[in-house]
């Protein structure tokens, strides 16, 4: 077990290192940070001075080393746009994204999983057809558009809910619905497929041959076996929402999450901030992936770490 953790840690470091390297070299070579930071009126001398100040006249590899050193100390640069250190800016947005991610994934499981399982249990039945149709539909909806639709219906036409902003349950209802549709559809699809596959496996027939009745069969054997797949898919969707795929919905609802921050950073040409966001989310992804794999291996003993 420890062997596995160490190995995975190594993998994680590799990924993060890759990310850091790519973002660093891309940012330093493709564009000129100094230009972005100074107003148009700045003189060439100002440029040169700032450059030396920031150590940007050193050769790239040397800059990289300095950068890594700063990174290790938690210094990820200063936001060009906000003027404050980037790392705290990013970290303070995490809880908002986390809330959104957790809630929408929960809703997706609540609705999507039963639909998928029921469909897979009886392929070809009307339940199955309904399951397939609803999951196809939900996978096709652009989440930001749905958000706008929901705002129009429930905030503008019917003044039940606030149009945007951050806060308690009230503020969460619409964005969560908008965000949960695609994960829900995906989960329904995957669950249906998994259940259908498991039901035709020889051991299910063999279990029936032992004398096990249908519902008991399902509960004992099939559900556990599809759990791994479900956990994997849900985990990925959670990660996606958490790490920026929610830019559309966060923008529509003015939700102060990481995605929205990234959009603002881009609009404001804040390279440093964007780099930081990319790296932080990269780390999150790697860590969550590792946990997911651990979880999967606990459920399915065949998976060797």
């Amino acid at each position: 077990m420890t062997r596995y953790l160490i190995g995975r840690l190594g993998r994680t470091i590799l990924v993060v290192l890759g990310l850091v390297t790519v973002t660093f070299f891309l940012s330093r070579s493709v564009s000129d940070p100094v230009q972005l930071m100074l107003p148009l009126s700045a003189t060439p001398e100002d440029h040169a001075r700032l450059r030396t100040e920031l150590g940007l006249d050193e050769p790239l590899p040397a800059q990289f080393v300095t950068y890594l050193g700063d990174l290790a100390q938690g210094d990820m640069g200063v936001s060009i746009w906000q003027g404050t250190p980037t790392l705290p800016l990013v970290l303070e947005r995490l809880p908002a994204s986390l809330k959104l991610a957790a809630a929408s994934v929960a809703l997706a499981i609540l609705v999507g999983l039963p639909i998928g399982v029921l469909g897979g249990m009886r392929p070809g039945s009307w339940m199955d057809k309904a399951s397939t149709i609803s999951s196809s539909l939900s996978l096709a909806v652009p989440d930001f558009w749905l958000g706008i639709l929901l705002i129009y219906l429930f905030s503008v036409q019917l003044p039940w809910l606030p149009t945007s902003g951050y806060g308690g349950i009230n503020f969460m209802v619409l964005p969560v619905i908008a965000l949960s549709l695609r994960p829900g559809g995906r989960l329904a699809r995957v669950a249906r497929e998994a259940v259908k596959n498991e039901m035709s496996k020889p051991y299910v027939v063999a279990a029936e041959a032992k004398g096990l009745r249908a519902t008991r069969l399902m509960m004992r054997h099939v559900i556990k076996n599809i759990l791994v797949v479900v956990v994997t898919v849900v985990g990925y969707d959670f990660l996606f929402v958490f790490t920026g795929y929610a830019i559309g919905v966060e923008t529509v609802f003015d939700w102060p999450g990481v995605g929205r921050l990234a959009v603002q950073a881009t609009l404001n040409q804040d390279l440093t901030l964007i780099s930081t966001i990319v790296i932080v989310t990269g780390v999150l992804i790697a860590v969550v992936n590792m946990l997911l794999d651990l979880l999967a291996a606990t459920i399915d003993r065949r998976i060797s770490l």
Partner: protein
Amino acid sequence: MSLTATPRTPNPLRRVLRGAKGNWGGAIALTFIIVIIVFAIFGEALAPHDAHSQNLRERLLPTAWAEGGSMTHVLGTDSLGRDALSRIIVGTRVTLLIAVIAAGLEAGIGVPLGVIAGFKSGKVSSIIMRWVDIQMGFPAALLILFIILLTGGGTLIIPIALAVNGWMIFARVTRVSVSQLRATGFVEAAVASGISQTRIVVRHILPHISGTVLTIVLFEIPRIILAESTLSFIGLGVQPPAISWGLMIGGSRSLLQVAFHLSFFPGLFIMVTVLSMNMVSNWVEPILDPQRRGRL
């Protein structure tokens, strides 16, 4: 289960059409796709008005069936007086082109890498797949924003940025297919007979993976359409004066109370296009890829 099952009629087109008989949903979807493609090619000719011409006296007209609307502008006009329907029709081109180009680029990067990795198991293969694993751990959406920032963005950059972050699926799936094929009897017999590696790849491997690759392309295109729409909506994707559905929604966001239809219809088109493409892909997949190697 056979690795390379080929039904009696080798011609895929004929099989697809034969399948249409029992699948009316798929047939409707296919028709819609064809309409969309026609829009993309002949947009300007089919649109009732010039999509770019502004007419400030006809700003913010409602849809034909609402009060104050007319059949001249069936879906109303935007804040600059441009006809919404025409913009939707013409906007098909950019939306579709970006998706197709991006998907093509993804395949162009991923498939050759996958073939190499699958065919020559060893150091090279490990390095390639290791990199695929690493890059799959990158936050793709944010990296796209990063690239947009670096390059200044713009309509041309979008497909490249999307492709650079999405090619890995092609590499993964292709590698699996190729290494399975590599182990089949007929490939081993060819190797044992001294047939050159190039010939084996061209003659035995590529024909068997083309179906799988095409399937993934068909699934990628709608995904990319959604991604591009989101970017354009935010303002970081397609830039005016080019037209894209996402851009149209973004531009009408502030007019929610007054002209909801301007946000609604472009989005509806996105949804129906994506849905149709997914339905057609699902329908066509068992024919192109009987082993579900492209299963995502």
